[in-house]
């Protein structure tokens, strides 16, 4: 059997990679992909704890996270599209209308 600590460490490595992608990249698509990776890392942790505790509640939460991620991707990409329409770029540095 896989030790729980290894599953959790796998989840956190995945989370760190996703966070690196979301922080370091300027291409808005790769930032969104980093966010998806972070959400998936949380799913891995939930499934790991679920199978450790012998309880499916964690898996149900993971299904809700997947639902939220699908909605987030839909609305996020629609926002990217409408920003692209106004700015003609996908560089996240130029999305600065809310900046002081």
């Amino acid at each position, binding site marked *: 059997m*896989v030790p*729980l600590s290894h599953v959790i460490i796998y989840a956190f490595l995945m989370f760190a990679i996703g966070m690196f992608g979301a*922080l370091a990249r300027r291409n808005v698509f790769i930032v969104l992909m980093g966010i998806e990776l972070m959400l*998936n890392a949380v799913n891995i942790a939930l499934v790991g704890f679920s199978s450790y505790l012998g309880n499916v509640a964690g898996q149900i939460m993971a*299904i809700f996270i997947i639902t*939220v991620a*699908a*909605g987030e*991707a839909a609305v996020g990409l629609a926002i990217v599209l409408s920003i692209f*329409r106004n700015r003609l770029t996908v560089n996240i540095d130029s999305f600065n209308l809310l900046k002081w």
Partner: protein
Amino acid sequence: MSWTQFFFYVFAGLSLLCALMVVTRRNAVHSAIFLIITFFFMAAVFVILKAELLAAVQVLVYAGGVVSLMLYVIMLVKAEEASQVKQNLGQIAIAAFIALLLALQVGSIVYLYFAQKPAGKAAVEALKYGGNTEGIGALLYTKYLFPFEVASVLLLAAMVGAIVLAKNRLER
């Protein structure tokens, strides 16, 4: 080391490798393809952890839906445009530092507190009902009924919001 454990390390390692490729590729289309492979390996890990329904959902929703939506949007904006974004070295260094710090910090805490406790046994509660899918169904539509109905409102909001945002473009 049992076969289960061996396959866990293989699939976990491969998915981490592909995730690294996702965040380092210059071309967003390549990143999206690597993201699909990452999700497939993650689904394999879910199977090893006895979450069969979630593995299927992972492939169905993420690899089939979310990434193809991303690929469409990458094609909607000019493909060349998406690959020409300049990177800043300082930003990469700071981001890598923060991500590593987080991984080390949380990873060490988790390792100390949960060291060597076995995961990967089947969810016993679910087996009472016959299997993973049945177990999830038994809980999702009774105990977690309210979040389930709220999820439909969330999907409705996402649908309306995304159509409103894409609408201006449709009229032109």
